[in-house]
């Protein structure tokens, strides 16, 4: 079973990716600060296929050791899904500097550093897949999300150049750009807002986390062997 690391795997998109990869016979190494009930339940259902690695991804200086430990414990790493991130909103002119720094640290610096060390295992094996979770906000813009957008746009630039860098070693690097998702909207938007956003999409609905998970499993599969350096948008056509 090929090993795949997923960051932010305790809920939402990360958890959905973990469940889809287990279904497709991968071994999942789920990284999150704390285990949720949902992740614990998924582990109970597939104790040989999902492992929980508690870790605070903002601790940049410990990422090298984390990568070493995971390599030593599980063997070669085939896949890395850089999913963890925060979506702090704020008008830039009044946003606390600490919030700006935290966004950049978690959404940008941390995935780049983790990739630096995990890609070494892939280089030694001459094979690997990296998927960076970006966002349609990277290209569309949204009021109150300028810093978040900057971090998500950076993941696309990172994806394209790293794909060039490691392609000849048999490593594919892609990004997935989800739109507004069904589940993530429920907490912060009312029905009218949901319907307005869904009404703007080509398919007149919202994508959900399972749709994003299927895009990721495709990019990890052999079917995507000739796809690298690209962005797969999953937004039910809201940016079409």
């Amino acid at each position, binding site marked *: 079973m090929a090993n795949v690391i997923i960051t932010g795997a305790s809920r939402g998109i990360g958890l959905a990716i973990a469940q889809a990869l287990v279904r497709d016979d991968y071994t999942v190494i789920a990284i999150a600060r704390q285990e949720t009930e949902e992740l614990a339940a998924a582990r109970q259902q597939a104790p040989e296929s999902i492992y929980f690695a508690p870790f605070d991804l903002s601790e940049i200086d410990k990422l090298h050791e984390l990568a*070493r430990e995971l390599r030593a414990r599980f063997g070669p790493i085939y896949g890395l899904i850089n999913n963890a991130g925060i979506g702090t909103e704020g008008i830039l002119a009044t946003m606390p500097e600490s919030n700006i720094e935290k966004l950049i640290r978690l959404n940008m610096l941390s995935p780049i550093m983790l990739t630096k060390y995990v890609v*070494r295992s892939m*280089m*030694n094996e001459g094979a690997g897949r990296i998927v960076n979770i970006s966002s349609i906000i990277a290209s569309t813009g949204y009021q109150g999300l300028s810093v978040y957008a900057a971090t998500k746009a950076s993941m696309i630039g990172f994806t394209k150049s790293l794909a060039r*860098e*490691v392609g*000849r070693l048999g490593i594919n690097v892609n990004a997935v750009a989800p739109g507004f998702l069904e589940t993530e909207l429920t907490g912060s938007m009312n029905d009218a807002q949901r319907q307005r956003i869904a009404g703007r999409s080509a398919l007149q609905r919202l994508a959900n986390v399972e749709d994003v998970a299927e895009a990721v499993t495709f990019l990890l599969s052999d079917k995507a062997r000739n796809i690298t350096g690209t962005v797969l948008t999953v937004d039910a056509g809201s940016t079409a």
Partner: protein
Amino acid sequence: MSTRSKIIQAIEEIAAAQKKTLAPLTDDLALTNSGLDSLCFALLVARLEDETGRDPFSESDEVSFPVTLGELIALYEHEHA
């Protein structure tokens, strides 16, 4: 196997795998003239970390990439001390 032998063997195997022609591997060989490119050196660092558990370039911000093969070997031998 000594650290020196591990490094030389790794360089030869990486050069073969990446279809690079190596210059004679003497201590005073400038790495830029070795026949390996920057990705090959990244591969070398990754492989040596796997084999030795050491990565002298990440352990300190003060370590810059060595100029000659002899300096590269010394860096890893020093880490072993």
